[in-house]
């Protein structure tokens, strides 16, 4: 007998057409892959900033995306990640979901909607499976979910109310206790959690979430033809001396560390034709001190750095084609950086900070190199090693495993949903369904 389609509502804190963050891209890619699967019906609801465009509803559509909805839910409380305005959830989101009758509600982040949507969802859709995918450490860390110390950007290894109070002295430690208990209570309403990396899962388990309710599922990456390697490098007639940085130009991504590392390599060791391509954006949104530092480093680097600026996703293959290595010098833990998946899709070895999700994704000596995070000298040494070591690039490029495709990732998600549904149905049968059947 043909099974009825699995109805999945994917809820994300943003739409990639409005905000091209990694979580937005990953969640929408998942939805896209679902829509291509005949056994799945998918609805994508993304939060959108600003006032609702239509009278009488917080919902809006998006041209060209017939199964996508935008919810203008208002801002969430920055401290607790709780919804600050429940009307849009109650009056628009919940009825829309009720009409869709989802078997699965899959939230990516709880940003946008607010963590307190979870128990409300549980009450409104008691039969549905609720899944939450974490894309960073927002539940653990008030500091943009980055788990770095406010101000210094030192890595935070163990959040605690006292430590968080140290980062935010104007907030008493007691508020962080409430924040933690609130978020744990809200997340407790979910049936299952998904982490794109083991590292992120381990952090959340260490924080107190149930490991038995966790799965590690990589984000899928929409398929594309790999960008060709530079022919002379591929042929071994030229050294692989071109590096690429792709991402936002913010302090967490370590662009300043990378620029400083490039500047520290003596001219004698900087080969002819060597270059760092910086393809990134949002420098203008950073604090003035950081902007000034990056601009000064760019000026110091001179012709060693080629500043490309923002790029569109479809421009990425062409940009990749100009570089031999991708550098991911982040100074925060990261999760499962899309840029590493993209680098591996295009078969570029990665030189990355040896921490967190980067260390998990990049295997040193196999498909990339590790450098001590935040250490410009160590990164400079890694860059020199990459340029100088004979055969290294070819060996690492050959060791790259292609990233999980979006379709495969979607399939794994569907398998997970069905597994949870089956377990849930089993427990329900164990409770009263069997009894009712017996009575019938």
């Amino acid at each position, binding site marked *: 007998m043909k099974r009825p389609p699995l109805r999945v509502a994917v809820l994300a804190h943003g739409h990639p057409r409005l905000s091209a963050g990694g979580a937005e891209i990953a969640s929408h890619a998942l939805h896209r892959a679902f829509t291509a699967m005949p056994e799945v019906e998918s609805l994508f609801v993304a939060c959108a900033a600003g006032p609702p465009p239509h009278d009488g509803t917080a919902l809006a559509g998006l041209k060209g995306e017939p199964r996508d909805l935008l919810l203008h839910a208002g801002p969430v409380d920055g401290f607790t990640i709780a919804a600050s305005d429940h009307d849009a959830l109650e009056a628009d989101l919940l009825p829309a979901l009720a009409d869709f009758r989802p078997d699965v509600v899959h939230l990516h982040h709880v940003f946008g909607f607010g963590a*307190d949507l979870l*128990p409300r969802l549980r009450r409104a859709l008691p039969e549905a499976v609720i899944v939450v995918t974490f894309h960073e450490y927002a539940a653990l860390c008030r500091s943009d979910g980055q788990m770095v110390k406010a101000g210094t950007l030192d890595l935070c290894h163990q959040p*605690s109310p006292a430590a968080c*109070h140290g980062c935010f002295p104007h907030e008493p430690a*007691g*508020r*962080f206790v409430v924040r933690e*208990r*609130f978020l744990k209570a809200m997340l407790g309403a979910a049936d299952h959690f998904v982490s794109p990396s083991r590292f992120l899962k381990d952090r959340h388990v260490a924080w107190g979430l149930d490991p038995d309710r966790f799965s590690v599922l990589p984000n899928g990456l929409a398929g594309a033809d790999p960008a060709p390697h530079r022919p002379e490098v591929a042929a071994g007639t030229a050294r692989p001396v071109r590096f690429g940085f792709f991402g936002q130009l913010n302090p967490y991504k370590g662009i300043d560390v990378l620029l400083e590392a490039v500047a520290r390599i003596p001219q004698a060791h900087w080969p002819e034709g060597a270059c760092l391509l910086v393809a990134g954006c949002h420098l203008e949104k950073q604090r003035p001190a950081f902007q000034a530092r990056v601009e000064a480093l760019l000026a110091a680097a001179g012709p060693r750095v080629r500043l490309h600026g923002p790029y569109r996703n479809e421009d990425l293959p062409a940009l990749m084609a100009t570089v031999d290595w991708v550098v991911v010098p982040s100074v925060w833990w990261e999760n499962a950086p899309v840029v590493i998946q993209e680098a591996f899709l295009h078969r570029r070895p990665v030189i990355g900070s040896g921490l967190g999700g980067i260390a998990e994704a990049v295997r040193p000596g196999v498909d990339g190199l590790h450098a001590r995070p935040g250490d410009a000298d160590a990164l400079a040494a890694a860059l020199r090693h990459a340029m100088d070591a004979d055969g290294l690039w070819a060996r690492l490029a050959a060791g790259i495993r292609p990233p999980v495709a979006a379709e495969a990732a979607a399939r794994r998600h569907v398998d997970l949903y069905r597994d949870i549904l089956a377990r849930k149905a089993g427990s329900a049968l164990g409770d009263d369904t069997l009894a009712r059947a017996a009575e019938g």
Partner: protein
Amino acid sequence: MAADTPETDSAKRLVAAPDAMRLIAGPDAKRLAAEPDAKRLVAAPDAMRLVAGPDAKRLPAEPDAKRLPAGPDAMRLVAGLVDRRLVLAFGRHPVGDGATPVRVGADGAHLVEADIAGWSGPDGAGALILLPIPRGLRGSLSAVAVDGEGGPVVHPVQPKAVPVEAVLKSAAAAAGAAFPTVAGRLASALLKLEPFPDRTRLAAVLAHAAATPGGLVEAIGRFAAGDLMVKGWAGDLPGEPAPVVVLAPEPRRGRLAAVRFPRADLPEGRRGYAGVLAVDGPVEAAAATAVLVETASGWRALDLYRDRLVVEPDACPGHLAAHLAEASGPPETAAAVRAAACRFAGRDTLSEVALPVRLGVDRCLALPGGGLALCGWLFDPERRVRAVMVGGGPAGARLDDRWTRIARPDVRPALRADPGLDGRSEPDALQGFLAHATGLPAGGLHISVDLGPDGVVHRPLDARPGDRDALHDLLDATFPLPAAAAAAVERHLLPLLDGLEAARAPSIAGVEDIGFQPGARTAVLMGFGPDLADLLPRLAIQAVDPDRTGIVVAAPARALRAAVPEIRRLAAFHDLKVRLVFCDDVAVGLDAMTLGAREAGADWLALVPDHVVPAAPGTIRALLAAARAAGPDAAVAPTLLHDDGTVRWAGPARKGRPAQLMGLKGRIAVEMLSAECCVVPRQAFLAAGGYRGPLTGRAGRGEALGRRLAAAGVRSFWLADAIAIATDPPRPAERIARLADRLLLASPVPTSAREGRAA
């Protein structure tokens, strides 16, 4: 100048003084008759009979005499009740004279001293008697036995009591010209008895009847301290401080110390006077009508001059000081007047002092309840200062007998350039002080320095309104060293905390229900201070508890009202049943909970203050279930941890250590629990006074309540595997508060005298 007064016959004065007579007649008499003693007096006619005169039978000396024998009616005493312990009696026969021991009571067993003013005139002899009613008098006042030469003479008392006014009128008529003397003597005697208002009123009537014109009061004022400044002219006045009665709507007794000085406008025999009149109760200067002074030759009336000057309080000392140079009087009188002339007059006289004495007040806090805390410094190299006081209105307190001296190395260098000190220095740097006083008004405060023969100088105190936190800050800043701080907390802070606690008047301003169902067996009681930042997430945490018990939120009214719309939305979103209790005059969540419990409407309360959060959903449900299982007289507390995982309270576990809870599960009986977060029978919580008390720290208040619950017979249990997390807000003065709490908790009587009373 009015140098004349109307000639007044004393007997006429009595009759012509309706105001004064009203003081003791009519309603007062009725009221007194309602007293138990008066009832006995009225209800026992037989017992009131007395024997008098030559036929009076003597009390049998034998111990088996049971009753005073009755006497002839003609010799009866007519009695009126002045108050429940004093009778005014009148007899038309000789009874005695002066302070006389008499026996009263059914068996004559009570010996008391009566004041008898007798007379003998053309219309016969008589007596007016002040007769104290002894405590424990059984039966009625049936007779009075007066010791005579041949033994006790028994005088029957007329069965029915009459108004004191009637007694006086009868006596005035019978005594005739002798009455003023009789009245004066009794007035003097009355003023020696305990100062009850009815006696003062009677004394006023008698003294008024006895007094002859003696002068005028031309200026009168009331000092801030409540006593009176009087100035005018008089003939003879006692040199030493003398008893007086001030005639006013409510007459007062007192003592007048007045110095005399010559005045050119007065005839021979009259001189000016200026004095201070200490009275036994408040008198409005403008309402006084006469000052009656007892002199060696009888009572003198200083009537209030028609165009008298009513002097403002701050001007009273100056009026006295103006005459000190030319005035004369005995040392005691002169000293009293000089001291009054040196009183605080609203301005700084300390800075004008020519002596090498300097004083500064750095901070001064006026606390609710009349407490005052101040710190400053005193530079007194020649030890001229006899005392340092603080005053305000009628209240005052000495500071230097309780202050703590503190090193202030900055004082000496700062005063080096003071030319008035001429390089004088003190041997050490202990010029600083911290002091406190209680029972002071909020305004009009001043500090006074007694310089002995050089008088008293003052400085107005600019006291800032303060609260407990400000007090902690003051001590914290003054005592950086822990050992000194502990001593200062004990000496200064603890006495002030009692006043602070007594001054609080928390009340419920209103209740609002959001789907709340009164009458449920259980309710979660959450309390908040004015910061409601965490209210919504805390409510949301309750939403995931499968038990979904009704929630009572108690918080300061102003803040809570502002949050009502958000709470309504959240309650609707999560389907919560909430009762809001709007509280006035509460500062922290525990205080709000103490109030909110009254309106919680449940048998059991789960107490969740704003600094405690259950570690996991279901914690509250587990506590409630454990309490219900334990019985109606049980309270159950969870393991309470700090946010760093160390023990805040966990039964007998040591505080501050890492939690070692291995193997401990279920309900464990303990001697007492910390009620900081627990499930408790609501009535027990209320009966124990909730969290009220002088303790500052939340942990201390929880422990103190736990003690009170245990003392009240509530059985205490610890549910080891139920965990809640508690935090304390960081506060700069936490050190001082902790010291105070430690001392209070170490007090042997923390459960009753100092802490908590039924809300």
